[in-house]
C-alpha cells in the first residue's frame, strides 16, 4: 500500500482497539517478556510469580521442558539440557571451535553451516532452542494479556552481526511470532530508564549479560534516542567469569585431568553460586562434591578479581573505542547505566565508574530493564500510542564490505553508520572477456577476508564480454531498521542483475524453516488458503479506508481533477474485488491501487515534513490556510 497515514495528535486511528504487544528479552542465561498495561510497563510472570525464565531447554524422546524444569535436569542429564544457546546462534562450527561451552555438549556431525547439537530428540539447532523459549514466553503473554500477541519486539545485543540477527528472526518465525522490530539491548535499556521524558543529554549503556557484552553511547533529546556509537563483544559475558572461577577452583583443588560432563556442569553451577556470593562477601567457602573430585576450601574476592581481570579489561577497551567513535569526550557523558546480571560484580562496577568518571545508575533491576524498554517500544510500534514522540535511531554495529582481489575487504558501509542505510559502489572486471563476477559479502573491521565474518556470496552472470575494466558493476547494500542486510548487483551497461537477501551460511535455509513450521503447526491446506484470503482482504480494506480518508482531507488540495478521479475509481474497483474469493485478484488490484497512489502519498508526506521543518504545528497550518502548499509540493 502506498499510502502514508499521517496521525495527528489526539487522533488515534483506531481508538477503541488496543493491540496486544510485548517486549521479549531473549537472554543467554534468562529470558523475560514484558508488556505495557494500564500505561505501565511490567514484566509478565508465570503462575508461580516468576518473571525470569532460565533460557534452558531439555530435550528427551518423549517430552520437552523449558525454563526452570529444564534447568533442574542440567546436572543429571547435561547433554540433553541446552543452556546458553544464544552463544551459538548464527554461528558455524569454526566460530566456536575453541569455546569452553561447547565441551559441555555433543556437536552434531557435518562441518558446513550452523552448529547443531546432538540430543535424545535428534539434532537440534540453536535456532530451535531459542524458538522453544520464545513459544513459552509468548504463551505466557497470551495468557496474561487475554489473547494472541499482535506483535513483539525482540531484543538482541547491539553487537550481534547479521547472521546472529537473522537467526533470531528465524527463531521468532519458527515460534509463530510477528516481529515488529529487533531492538538493540542497550537502546532498550536507555528507553526503560525513562529518559524519554523530555530529558536530554548523553548516556552510556554498559550491558554485560550472561554471554554477550555491549556498550552504546546515546544522545537523548525530546524523546529521540539517537545511538552515536556502539561496540562490544558478542562472545563475552558472565559465563566467562564462571568459567574462569571454575578453572581456578580446579587449580586450587590440584585437579589436572578432564572432567566428565556431569561433573563439569555441577562445577560450573557451583562456580556461579560462588561468584554471586562474592558480590556481597569478600570470601566464600566452597565444597566440591563431584563424582570426579572432592575438595573443600575458600575463594576470596581478590582471587576472583585477579583471575577475571582480563575479561573486564576487554570490556573497558571496547568502551574506549566506542567513546572515540561517538566523537564525544568522556566528560561530555552525563549518565552511565548498568544492564545485565554480570554488572552486579563489584569489580565491574568500579572499573566502569573509573573509566567514565561517574557513578553508574542501577536503580532498575539490571535483569529486567531490557525487557521493560522493549515493551515500551512494542507498545509504540504497534500503534497504541499514536501521538507518542518517542523515536529510536540506531546504527550498524559492524562494518559491511565485499571481497576484492587479493583476499582483501573493501568496506561499503562503515560501523556506526545510522540505519536504515543504502550504499552503492561500482566495481569492474579484471580480466578480458570476464562474464561472471563473484560477490562475497563480509562483516567485520579487519582488512583480510579471513579475519571477517562471511555473510554469504552470490554470482553475477551474463556480463557481456569486454576488455578488462570496461564493465561497470554496481553493488548496492541495503540495511533495514532491524540491521538486516540485503545486497544486489547489476551491470550498468546491460542491466543484468542478481540479488540476495543475505541468508548467512550459518542460518537456516528458507525450506528448513517452512518444513519446521509445517511440522509444528500442522495447518491444514484449506486453513492456509482461508488465512491468505483473509489477509489479502484486510490489506485491501486497509488501503481503501486510509486512501478514502486521505482523499477527503487533502485530495482537492494536492491532486488535480483527473488524478482525484482515477484514485476514487481505483478505490471503488478494489472494494468490488474484495467481495470475491480470488486472492490473486485482490492482491493484484491492491498492488495497482497502491502504486497509483504513490505520488499522492509522497506529496502528503512531503507537506508534513516541510511543516515539521518550519516548526509550524499542524493546527497552525490549518489556520493560515493552504496557500503555501503548491509551492511546497515536490512534484
Amino acid at each position, binding site marked *: 500500500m502506498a499510502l502514508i497515514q499521517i496521525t495527528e495528535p489526539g487522533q488515534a486511528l483506531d481508538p477503541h482497539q488496543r493491540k496486544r504487544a510485548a517486549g521479549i528479552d531473549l537472554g543467554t542465561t534468562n529470558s523475560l517478556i514484558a508488556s505495557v498495561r494500564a500505561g505501565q510497563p511490567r514484566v509478565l510472570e508465570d503462575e508461580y510469580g516468576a518473571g525470569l525464565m532460565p533460557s534452558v531447554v531439555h530435550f528427551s524422546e518423549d517430552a520437552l521442558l523449558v525454563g526452570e524444569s529444564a534447568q533442574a535436569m542440567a546436572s543429571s542429564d547435561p547433554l540433553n539440557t541446552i543452556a546458553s544457546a544464544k552463544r551459538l546462534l548464527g554461528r558455524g562450527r569454526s566460530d566456536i571451535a575453541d569455546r569452553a561451552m561447547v565441551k559441555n555438549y555433543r556437536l552434531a556431525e557435518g562441518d558446513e553451516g550452523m552448529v547443531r547439537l546432538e540430543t535424545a530428540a535428534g539434532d537440534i539447532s540453536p535456532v530451535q532452542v531459542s524458538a522453544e523459549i520464545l513459544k513459552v514466553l509468548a504463551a505466557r503473554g497470551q495468557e496474561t494479556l487475554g489473547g494472541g500477541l499482535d506483535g513483539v519486539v525482540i531484543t538482541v545485543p547491539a553487537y550481534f552481526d547479521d547472521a546472529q540477527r537473522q537467526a533470531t528472526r528465524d527463531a521468532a518465525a519458527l515460534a509463530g511470532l510477528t516481529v515488529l522490530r529487533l531492538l538493540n539491548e542497550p537502546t532498550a535499556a536507555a528507553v526503560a530508564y525513562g529518559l524519554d521524558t523530555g530529558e536530554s543529554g548523553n548516556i552510556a549503556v554498559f550491558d554485560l549479560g550472561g554471554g554477550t557484552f555491549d556498550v552504546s553511547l546515546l544522545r537523548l533529546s525530546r524523546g529521540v534516542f539517537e545511538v552515536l556509537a556502539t561496540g562490544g563483544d558478542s562472545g563475552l559475558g558472565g559465563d566467562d567469569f564462571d568459567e574462569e572461577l571454575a578453572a581456578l577452583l580446579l587449580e586450587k583443588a590440584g585437579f589436572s585431568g578432564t572432567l566428565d560432563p556431569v561433573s563439569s556442569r555441577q562445577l560450573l553451577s557451583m562456580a556461579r553460586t560462588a561468584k554471586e556470593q562474592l558480590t556481597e562477601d569478600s570470601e566464600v567457602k566452597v565444597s566440591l562434591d563431584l563424582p570426579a573430585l572432592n575438595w573443600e576450601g575458600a575463594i576470596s574476592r581478590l582471587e576472583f578479581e585477579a583471575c577475571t581481570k582480563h575479561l573486564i579489561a576487554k570490556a573497558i577497551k571496547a568502551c574506549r573505542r566506542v567513546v572515540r567513535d561517538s566523537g564525544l569526550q568522556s566528560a561530555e557523558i552525563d549518565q552511565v547505566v548498568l544492564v545485565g546480571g554480570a554488572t552486579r560484580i563489584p569489580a565491574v562496577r568500579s572499573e566502569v565508574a573509573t573509566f567514565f568518571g561517574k557513578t553508574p545508575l542501577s536503580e532498575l533491576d539490571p535483569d529486567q530493564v531490557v525487557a521493560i524498554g522493549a515493551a515500551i517500544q512494542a507498545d509504540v510500534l504497534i500503534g497504541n500510542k499514536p501521538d507518542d514522540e518517542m523515536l529510536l535511531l540506531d546504527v550498524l554495529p559492524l562494518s559491511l564490505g565485499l571481497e576484492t582481489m587479493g583476499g582483501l575487504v573493501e568496506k561499503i558501509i562503515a560501523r556506526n553508520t545510522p540505519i536504515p542505510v543504502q550504499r552503492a559502489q561500482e566495481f569492474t572486471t579484471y580480466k578480458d572477456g570476464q562474464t561472471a563476477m563473484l560477490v562475497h559479502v563480509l562483516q567485520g573491521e579487519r582488512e583480510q577476508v579471513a579475519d571477517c565474518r562471511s555473510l554469504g556470496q552470490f554470482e553475477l552472470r551474463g556480463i557481456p564480454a569486454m576488455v578488462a575494466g570496461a564493465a561497470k558493476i554496481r553493488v548496492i547494500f541495503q540495511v533495514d531498521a532491524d540491521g538486516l542486510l540485503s545486497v544486489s548487483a547489476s551491470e550498468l551497461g546491460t542491466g543484468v542483475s542478481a540479488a540476495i537477501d543475505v541468508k548467512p551460511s550459518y542460518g537456516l535455509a528458507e525450506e528448513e524453516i517452512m518444513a519446521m513450521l509445517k511440522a509444528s503447526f500442522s495447518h491444514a491446506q484449506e486453513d492456509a488458503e482461508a488465512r491468505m484470503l483473509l489477509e489479502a482482504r484486510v490489506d485491501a480494506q486497509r488501503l481503501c479506508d486510509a486512501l478514502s480518508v486521505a482523499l477527503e482531507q487533502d485530495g482537492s488540495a494536492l491532486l488535480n481533477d483527473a488524478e482525484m478521479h482515477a484514485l476514487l475509481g481505483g478505490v471503488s474497483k478494489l472494494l468490488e474485488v474484495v467481495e470475491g474469493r480470488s486472492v490473486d485478484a485482490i492482491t493484484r488490484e491492491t498492488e495497482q491501487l497502491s502504486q497509483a497512489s504513490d505520488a499522492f502519498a*509522497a506529496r502528503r508526506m512531503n507537506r508534513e*515534513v516541510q511543516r515539521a521543518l518550519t516548526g509550524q504545528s499542524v493546527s497552525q497550518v490549518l489556520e493560515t490556510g493552504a496557500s503555501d502548499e503548491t509551492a511546497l509540493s515536490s512534484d
Partner: protein
Amino acid sequence: MDFNQNFFELFRLEVGFDLDLERLREQFQILQREVHPDRYADQDARSQRLATQWSMHVNEAFSVLSKPLPRAIYLLGLTNIVLEQNPTLEPDFLFEQITLRESLDHVVETRSVDDLAVLLDEFSEKLMAEQSQFSQRFDAGALDLATQSVYRMQFLNKLQIAAQQAEEMLWDE
C-alpha cells in the same frame, strides 16, 4: 520529501562549509520523526518500504553533512567539481606527509600510548587548519584552491585513521 533537493535544502540550511551542527542534528531528528519506518511499523509492507527509502535518504544526507571531509567533497560536487583519483600535490606538502608518516611508524615501534596521543592531537590540529583553509577558499569562490584543500584533507584523514588504528592495536597489547 524531494529526492532532487540538495542536502542543504533538505535540512533547510544555508549552503556552506561552516554549519551549525546543533541545528543540523535538530533538523535531522525532526525529519526522522516524520519518515522513520518505526512510525509506520503498524502499517503494511509497502508503506514501510517507502518510509525506509525516505529514512535512508535522510540518513545519507546527515552522514555527508555532519562530517567535514564528506561535506567538503559534497560542496565541490554541487559546483560540478569531480575529484581526481591521483591528484598532483605540492612537493612541500608531500614531504611533510612522509615525515608525519615516519613519526607515526616510529611511535608505533616504541609502543608509547602517550606519544601516540600527542601525535593524534597534532594530526587533528593540522586537519582543522586545513578545514578552515577550505572554508575560506570555498567562500571566496576560489574553487581550484578549495579543491587542493580537499586533497590535503584526504591525506590527513588517512593519516588520522592509520594513527587511530595503531592506537587500537596498542590498546590490545
